[in-house]
């Protein structure tokens, strides 16, 4: 399918007094709008995503904590799946990998500004972030790739 152009560089610098001591801005990545939907076709890292590592990130309450809001049947070994968001069973049938990557990086680009889902790879445009988290995305680029690999296998 042909991409409809519109390549946007993201990853703006953090506007904060703490920015000078904080981690450097996120490395740039390209958002491609395809059929009106924002996607990130290229992986964020050269290392391919590992679905097993992704499952760990999905479960970890300090990392993805995806079960907080989503039911995922292949992870039924874990207690307490939330239902704030839709179940993720078969999510790879609903979205291609490039769109899944965009949703994990910044779901507002796909679902709109009103979504309650956090952006897992974003450091700008946030309000009153605790100093220890300033300039840091919730997940590293590699963790995003691992989660995307895990989600892409949920067919």
């Amino acid at each position, binding site marked *: 399918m042909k991409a409809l152009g519109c390549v946007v560089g993201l990853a703006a610098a953090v506007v904060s007094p703490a920015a000078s001591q904080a981690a450097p801005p996120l490395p740039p990545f390209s958002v491609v709008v395809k059929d009106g939907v924002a996607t990130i076709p290229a992986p964020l890292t050269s290392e391919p995503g590992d679905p097993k590592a992704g499952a760990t990130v999905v479960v970890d309450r300090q990392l993805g904590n995806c079960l*907080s809001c989503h039911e995922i049947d292949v992870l039924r070994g874990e207690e307490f799946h939330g*239902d704030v968001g839709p179940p993720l069973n078969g999510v790879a049938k609903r979205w291609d990998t490039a769109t899944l990557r965009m949703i994990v990086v910044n779901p507002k680009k796909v679902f709109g500004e009103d979504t309650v889902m956090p952006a897992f790879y974003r450091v700008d445009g*946030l*309000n009153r972030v605790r100093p220890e988290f300033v300039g840091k995305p919730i997940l590293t680029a590699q963790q995003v790739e691992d989660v995307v690999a895990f989600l892409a296998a949920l067919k």
Partner: protein
Amino acid sequence: MSPRLALCAIVLLAIVGGAVAIAWGRSGPERPHWEGHGIKPPDKDFPLPEIVSGYWFRTKETQAIQDDDFNNPGFFAVEQGEELWSKPDGAAGKSCASCHQDAATSMKGVGAAMPKWREALHKPVNLEQQINICRTERMQAEPWKFGSAELTAMTTYVRFQSRGMPVRVRIDGPMAPWFERGKQLYHTRNGQLDLACASCHEKNYGRNLRADFLSQGQSNGFPVYRLRDQRLVPLHERMEGCIFDVRGIPYAPLSDEFLALELYLAWRGTGLPVETPAVRN
């Protein structure tokens, strides 16, 4: 297959399928039935279709602890507050009772209508602040620190005198800008997780955030006895906790921001009975 048999088969499949879906879909504890326990909002533009106390979002076991005054650990604070009420403190040699006599009469309804405008200060004050105003101005005593056992106990004791009375705060006149500020804060996202109060307590109450069953975040039970903390928790501490948990920088307890938010929260619970000391998990 006859159409009738086919229909039976479909119905049977639907029942079995439904049962499997319920058993499979939820691995957590059974969820409380909060629906239908709400009261009607005061007008059609209200942000909630019905106003439901956090009581109904808790398990039957937790409700039972609150229902029994002898079992409710929050009553230790009520008793402590009652003792402090008539205990003189400060240079003026006065106690609360010196001016207000019997709290059961003089404080009835007071806690249901806070925060309230104080003309002398040109701002609204909440119960904790009013107690400390009395201490410093009338009793010439040191103000109690926010979060101290004494201040929380006295706040609990005074609010308890309004138990069962409907929450009703003034939001007109000089309170209007404070109300607007509170409303704005309620809808402002905070922290690395980028969540507002409204993200969970307006858009998603009645759903599970992992093991937490989300309520409307109503304030009618505060200070509440929190089972996980095993002590009474004042409202501003709980608001602090929420903002901290989304990895944000909380406002300070008793700050203007939290006072505005307290006012707005009270309005969102208009008509709910005061439940202090409520029990929550």
